[in-house]
Structures are given as C-alpha cells and as structure tokens.
C-alpha cells in the first residue's frame, strides 16, 4: 500500500502516487460493495458498517506514514485495514466469521487487528480507541522509537468524555499521536448540528493547546498533505494535532439503517459532485496519466481481488469448536 517516502512534496501528486491512490480507494469501495452484498445474502452477520464515500481519508493518511507507525480506529474499520495493507481475504473471511479471518472468526467486522501491519483495531465502543491510541503513542514516547500513532474517531465519538481526557494527557505529555476525526456529519442518525454545540470539530482541541485543521476529506491529496504536516509535527516531539476530515458516508450507519434522516438529494449531490474516487480519476485523466481503458483495467484487477476474497471468505471453514476456549488467557 501507499506509504510516504519522506521526501518533501508539493500539493501535487505524481502519476504513480495518483494511480496508487486510485487503486487503493477503489479496492476499499469494491470490497465494501461486495461486503454489503454478502451481508444481504446472510453470509455476514451482526453489525456491518461500510466505509463507502470516505475512502480518501484513510488512503491519504496512510500515505503520510512510515513503516511501523500505528493505526487505530473504531468499528467502521474495513477501509483502514485495507489501506494499512491487510489482505482482502483475511478481512472478508473475518466478516463471514470463518477461521481464515484476521481474528479467526472471533472478532467480526468491528474487531480485527494486525500486529504485522501495526493496525491495532477495530474497536466497538465509541471513543474507547482514542484512549487506547493515546496509550500506543505513550509507548512510542516511552521507548523513544520515533513511531507515530494515527488515532481515528467519528463525529459521534467527538462527544465522548474520554476523548478529551486523552487530548489533555497527549498534549500535556507531547505524545506522538495524530487525532483524525472523520466528520461524516451523522452520528448514526443524528446530524452533527443536533448533537454538537461546536460543529467545527477541529476546534475541539483548542482548550488543550492542540492545533486543529479542517481538511477536505474527499480530496486524497489534501488529506495526505495535512497528514504529513501533522505526522511530522508529532514525530518531532511537538505533540498531537487534530485533523477534521470533512467527509460523507453514502450508506447508512450500518447495513440495517435505511438512512431516512437525510434526503436522497443530499446523498445524490455528494455522490455526483464530491465523490473521492471520481476526483482522483479526474486528476489522472486530466493530466493524461492514464486513459479510461487503463482505469477500467485497474477496476478489473480490483474486482478480481475482491471476488477472490468473497470466494475465500465462503470457502474458509468455520472456526474449530476448540477455538471457543482459546485466547482467553495467555500461558504465564
């Protein structure tokens, strides 16, 4: 997956970078569409929160990281995992609750992890990951290992108390953490204007001396640039930043949400005028980096990866019954 190479970049992105972003974002979208389909067929159970519409956020932020930097998020996590380089097969098989999943079928959509890719979940309690991510950053500082932790949360979690408890400690101790609030404007069914006295969430760090920045979360290059500034600052020991990504989810909060709290026109307008994948596609074709046919070919490759993951996720066996009582304690 795309990673920053540490060089200084202008707000422009190279041909290779743009094509990589296109590929990474398309993988997330096609993956999520297929996950939605498998959910509809009853192959995925429980809760399933799709990331469609928000792809530029994770792909742009991942491009600002170095190997070893950590990522942690809440339960709308499939996109973060794919962006972090976790395999579509492993994620999809966890969605179907099979032994080939990242948590061997014991975590499901909201609880997946990969130490190898420094992805620390996948957490189901709104806001809990913010304290945990702050702790990952605490460990980085304790060890002086130069790593930075990206800690994602949503506009809903922005009203949880422990978020601010964490902000306070992170700024007090100058921890290498970047807070990213993915403001998709709806906390489940509650519009941000109905839940938040201050709707400009990047201002929520001011009283902790955490600088904030509003970012067009539908523009992958803008996300990457803001991400680089924040990550470099954190790595330099200057403490956390709060990036507010203005974004939008096309689907409901979860699969069972008909999303009647917003108009069809609003959703259609976002899809037609602000789609993050169409945006990067236009950058590519306008610059002559690739033709429509080239991009179709990428689409076909991505579809093949996603199809294979769907096959894998259905053919992978159920967890062995013995799994019921493993991974509760570690042998001392």
């Amino acid at each position: 997956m795309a990673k920053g190479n540490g060089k200084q970049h202008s707000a422009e992105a190279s041909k290779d970078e743009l094509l990589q972003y296109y590929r990474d974002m398309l993988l997330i979208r096609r993956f999520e569409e297929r996950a939605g389909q498998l959910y509809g067929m009853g192959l995925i159970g429980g809760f399933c929160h799709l990331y469609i519409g928000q792809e530029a956020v994770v792909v742009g932020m991942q491009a600002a990281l170095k190997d070893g930097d950590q990522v942690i998020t809440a339960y709308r996590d499939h996109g973060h995992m794919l962006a972090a380089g976790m395999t579509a097969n492993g994620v999809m098989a966890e969605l179907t609750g099979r032994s080939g999943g990242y948590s061997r079928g014991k975590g499901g959509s909201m609880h997946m992890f990969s130490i190898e890719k420094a992805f620390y979940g996948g957490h189901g309690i709104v806001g809990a990951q913010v304290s945990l991510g702050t702790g990952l950053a605490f460990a980085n500082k304790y060890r002086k290992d130069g790593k930075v932790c990206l800690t994602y949360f949503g506009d809903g979690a922005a009203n949880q108390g422990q978020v601010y408890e964490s902000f306070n400690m992170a700024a007090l101790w100058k921890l290498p953490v970047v807070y990213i609030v993915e403001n998709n404007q709806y906390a489940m069914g509650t519009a941000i204007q109905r839940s938040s006295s201050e709707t400009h969430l990047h201002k929520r760090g001011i009283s902790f001396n955490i600088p904030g920045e509003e970012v067009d979360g539908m523009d992958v290059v803008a996300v990457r640039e803001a991400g680089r500034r924040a990550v470099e600052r954190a790595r330099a020991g200057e403490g956390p930043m709060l990036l507010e990504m203005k974004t939008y989810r096309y689907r409901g909060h979860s699969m069972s949400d008909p999303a009647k709290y917003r108009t069809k026109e609003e959703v259609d307008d976002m899809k037609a005028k602000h789609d993050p994948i169409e945006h990067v596609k236009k950058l590519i074709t306008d610059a002559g980096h690739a033709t429509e046919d080239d991009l179709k070919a990428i689409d076909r490759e991505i579809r093949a990866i996603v199809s294979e993951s769907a096959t894998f996720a259905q053919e992978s066996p159920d967890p062995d019954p013995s799994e019921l009582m493993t991974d509760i304690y570690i042998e001392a």
Partner: protein
Amino acid sequence: MTQILMPALSPTMEEGNLTKWLVKVGDTIEPGQVIAEIETDKATMEVEAVDEGTVTELLVAEGAQGVKVNTPIAVLSGEGEQPSPLPRGEGAAQRAAGEGRSDVRMTESARPADRPSPPTPSPQGRGGLIPQSDPEIPANTQMIKVTVRDALRDAMAEEMRRDDRVFVMGEEVAEYQGAYKVTRELLQEFGAQRVVDTPITEHGFAGLGVGAAMAGLKPIVEFMTWNFAMQAIDQIINSAAKTLYMSGGQIKSSIVFRGPNGAASRVAAQHSQDYSSWYSHVPGLIVVAPYDAADAKGLLKAAIRNPNPVVFLEHEMLYGQEFEIPDVKDWIVPIGKAKVRRQGVDVTITAHSRMVGLALKAADELSKQGIEAEIIDLRTLRPLDTDTILESVRKTNRIVTVEEGWGQSGVGAEICARVTAEAFDYLDAPPTRVHQVDAPLAYAANLEALALPSVEKIVDAVKAVTYR
C-alpha cells in the same frame, strides 16, 4: 448470467416487499446503482447493484409482498463480466439462506445437538493458570516484619528494577508519593518517565494504560481507590479483558490495575464498595485479593510478570498492618492458589482480603467453644481455587463463606454453587454466606458496623451450620 437475490437488510430480516423496480429489462447497470426499493416492517431501503451488466429478466414483479430473503429477483448478463464466485441458483441460495445463515447465528443460541459440543472449561481456567504451590521457604530464612503498604511498594520496585517495560501511573503516585503512600520513593528511584502522575481522569488513563500494554509495555495502573475505577470499567473489561480473544490471540494486554478496595472507615457508600464479585465475573481477567504482607508482595510480583490483565484488590485497612514476610530474594506467590491458613475439622470458612483476619479471629472464638474451623484464604478470586475448597469441605462437611461485599451474585454465591454441585453428598448443612447487608453502606458508625461482616456474624453462622 448473474442472478440478483433478495437481500437481507438487517440481521433479523427474513422477507420483505419489493415496492419498486428502478430498472427495466434491457437497462445497463453499474455497480452502486440503485435498482430497486424494498420495504420491511421496519423500513424502506434501496437495493444497489454490485455487478455491472444488462438486466435480462425481472423475476419478481413490482409490488410483490413477502419475498423471502435470497429469492432470485432479477437476472443480469454482461460482456467481460468476472466469473462470479458467489453461490448462484436455487441450491446455492438455499445454502446461503440456510446453512450459511445459521452458522452466523450459532454464537447467539444454543448449539444444535449434531454439532460437536465445546470443550468444558475447567474451573481452574485455561493454560498458564494451573496453580503451583507456594515456594519453599529455606530453613534458617529470617522472617522480617513488613507492612502491607511497604510489601506492595517493594514488589513494584523490585519488578521495575528487573524489567524496564514496567512503569506505574495514577493520581498522586509520584510527587505526592501516593495517596496512601504505596508508591513512596518510587519517583526518586525511577524518575518521572516511569512513575507518572496523571490528571484526575480514570477513564482516560485506564485506556491509555491498556493501549501502552497493547504496544508491549507493562503498566501498573493505580486507582486511588477502586470506587473511582467505575469510571474506567469499560476499558478494563471491554479493552483489556476481551481483546486477546477478539483478536484471535494477537493483541496482548499485560497490565496490573491496583488500588484499595472495599470499605475503609466511615467514608459512606460511594467510597466503600467491594468490587470482588464484579471483576471475578469476567473471563479474560485475573483477580487477586491478598490478605497479609507476604501474599501482597508475592502476588503483586506475580501479577506484574503475568502476561494477562490483572485486577489487584488491596484493602486500605490492611495497609498499615505488619506481618512477617520471608526475607528471600524474589519472593513470588503463585496466582490461582488458595492458602489454608488454619486447619480444622468441623467447618470450612472461605474469605479473602480483610475478611481473612475476621475469620481467623472467629476461629479462635469457636475453638474456645470446641469448634475447629478450617480457614481458606482465597487469595485469587479468578481463577478460583475450587479444588482446595472442595477438599476441605469433603473433610468438614460444612461451609461458611465470608466476603465484605453484597451477597447477591457474590463470591460466596459462586463458591456455594460450586460446592453444592461438586460436593453435594458431603454436605451436612446448607452452605451459608456471611456478607454485607443488602443496602448502600451507611456513614453512621453504628449503622456501618451493622452492615458489614463481623467476627460475631461469622461465629453465629458457624454455629448455625454446626447446629450448636
């Protein structure tokens, strides 16, 4: 050819109405395009296409009611389409609707009889928790008098010297030297990086500690008292205790949460709660509650070394008490092993933490009256050392449990259940519990004394089960 199936739009949907087709035969459709509207008793939702292609047939008419999930509703064809790996056609749809779906549901309901039953969990818990005996104390070992407070401090200091991943954090642990002076002089020896004063922010620093543990450090998180840890209980249970399981064994949390638990003296209901049964309810946690200084030190050292999250329940009323402790290097007491503190043949009394002292006093009283009680100090509440309890009950044929907390769903209730299930034929009297009365703890001295277990209440309970 690809069949589009009637989708389930919620975990419980079995059928729905196809209210509207938004495409017709001959239309070319793109992934993500809305092709139909479906209505259930709860909501109306749009169906989006996943594959691209041309609609060749609509199998279910607009307005159709009660269309079962996974019924084919349309047929799609497309040139250059990817061979679909999804189950198609009647048989496949049945697999998805039947077998596949029930697999997903399996965790929620009882397993059907034809499924292999899961292994029975041993009462001792799983690997690594098989208790060993206390270490042998070599002959001629000097016994030294140490308070529980200093024993706890020494345990932390020794483990911090041994392993630089170990650090302690909490309110007033550093500059102030500990609200109860348990972390006295640690700042001077280990510095501010490893002895971390936190803001008053239990939820936040408990979560931060778990995150640091997930990254491989070994935090000791001090709660000024366990009463304040209710602010943090979500992180202790949902993050620390469950993540190993939910990650398929990948994410480890080697962390100790410690602090004084239970009733102090005249601090009223909010500052006097016993959380023994709360935490001992939770798989994934280890729960330790020592009585004397030797166990406080040896068990805290074991807890810090343990790779699992440990809830370590201390007692303010014991901090200043002196006990003898063997002067040996690296004194470690194994987690998961109860200790018989007094041998007896007439009745078994179980207790933990401060209640052990009351039980020992009660045993002295009872002995004067010709009743010899066997006192079992539980020491670890999870995993509970059931074997030691059962062995004793098979000898005495009677059991009285003592705990400081409330009775309902308490530690004593659990012990009585296990004894009844596994030593029923040995019992000569009903298993009996001594515990706090079923009310918030009062401030007034007389009411507080009435509420809590006492030597007299233990003596009375023993007399009842021995029919004296």
